[in-house]
């Protein structure tokens, strides 16, 4: 059994109530929570601030 399979089996036992897609569901939910946490700490505004200006380096001028 490789490392990935071991972790999957271990996690599967712990998260059996979530069904056979436990890893996908927990990962997805973790992503959504992280996204919400990021918005909560003002990262939406930070991205808005960055993306609202022409990135000179990105267009090859910087």
């Amino acid at each position, binding site marked *: 059994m490789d490392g990935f399979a071991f972790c999957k089996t271990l996690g599967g036992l712990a998260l059996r109530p979530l069904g056979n897609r436990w890893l996908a569901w927990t990962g997805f939910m973790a992503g959504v929570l992280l*996204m919400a946490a990021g918005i909560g700490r003002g990262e939406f505004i930070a991205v808005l601030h960055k993306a609202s200006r022409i990135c000179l380096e990105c267009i090859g001028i910087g």
Partner: protein
Amino acid sequence: MVRVGPGGLGRIRRTVQFAALFVANAYWPGLARTTIYSGPAKGVCVPFLNCYSCPAALFACPLGSLQNLLATARILSVYVGGMMLAAGFAAGRLFCGWLCPFGLFQEVLALPRARHVRLPRLVRTVKYVLLALVVVLPVVWVSSGAGVPFFCKFICPAGTLEGGLVLVLGRPEFRANVGWLFVWKVAVLALFLALMPFVYRVFCRTACPLGAFYGLFNRVSLWRIERDTGRCKGCGTCVEVCPVGVPVTENPNHPECIRCLECTKACPYGALVFAMAEVGKQEVKLRN
């Protein structure tokens, strides 16, 4: 030789790709005035590569945002990272195959024989190296007090095509500041443009860090391709139609799979399905 016709799933996918292109780049006044949109939608990251310095772009590119926040504020954005994680766990590289405008651009340019070109493993590994550097280099590569968004600055051909060329051609003050960096970026774009007709989605398969990231989730994503071993006769039709050379019979959720789903349509025995499960319920399977 088995071919998937332009109808059915292929036509739906192409329609969705064009819809994504026009929705993500719906700020038409920006093209006319060669300015960029700066309204509230720009804070929203799309789950695919779409340069926010493109005059028509309505939303932000996750890679550009991630790198620029890392480079300038030393923030590993949990908002952008969480969005990428949620997208990856939801459907893996489905976003590459169905939404990415640069992927669509490459598909349009590809000649029919490009679909049968197989790439060596070493070449395909480059994108994982770039993925690691996307996170590491903006922090450690410091130039004049701020980090460098290295992928956007030195490689991203989507940014050169969507933002760089349009703005440099449209704005005299940018034209006056063109230097070696712009020449380098145009050379990178030209290299990929030269390869696109002959190698299907050459950038996605060799150098896209976002595709590399989503590919890591193909195996474990909520929506994934299921192979019914009872129905599969091992005829190899799926492998023949796969445009990116995935060994579908061995691993239908290979990290290289862009989830175009042509294999699910082509399988004569209906052994391949794109399926998802709901918590605590039986699997819901979608057949084409």
